[in-house]
């Protein structure tokens, strides 16, 4: 991954408290897994920024190296990598996701 790509990714993470690297956009997801995570955040009414990796091949590949994680979507909350679709789904179902939002001071629908 080149420095420019790394900087772009880092900027997204630094400038968005809740940052979802996904295929497509929150309004028009292009993959079921990206849609699932995006929908969970929507249901919780969390203000998040979806970054469409399909628009930029260097980010699509770069984010995998950046997070050392082979799949997309990837969720970052306050600069911390939280997980991919399976982990977020599990955390959504067992309440841990809300706990993280509480801990990190992110607003959501209680």
């Amino acid at each position: 991954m080149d420095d420019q790509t790394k900087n772009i990714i880092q900027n997204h993470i630094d400038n968005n408290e809740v940052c979802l690297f996904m295929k497509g956009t929150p309004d028009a997801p292009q993959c079921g897994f990206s849609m699932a995570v995006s929908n969970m955040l929507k249901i919780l009414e969390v203000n998040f920024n979806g970054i469409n990796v399909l628009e930029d091949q260097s980010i699509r590949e770069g984010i995998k190296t950046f997070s050392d994680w082979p799949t997309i979507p990837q969720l970052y909350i306050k600069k911390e990598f939280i997980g991919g679709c399976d982990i977020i789904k599990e955390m959504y179902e067992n309440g841990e996701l809300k706990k993280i939002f509480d801990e990190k001071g992110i607003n959501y629908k209680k």
Partner: protein
Amino acid sequence: MAMDLKEIEKYIKEAMPDASIEIQDLAGDGNHYSATVTSSQFAGKSKIEQHKMVYNSLKGKMGNELHALAIKTKEQ
């Protein structure tokens, strides 16, 4: 760009011999699987670390030959 169910199981088993593994072909297309992996090796590790162990056992196939593998990890 597809991978056999048995092959996935073999890779995970190689990396985690004690694991019990349940794999389902979700769409019947050899491309969308779910795996539930139970192993004592997950003890004391975060979910991210646990999932990474499964990804690593697949030696780079995840995201390439293997398009979609939903993972569920459980500590034994």
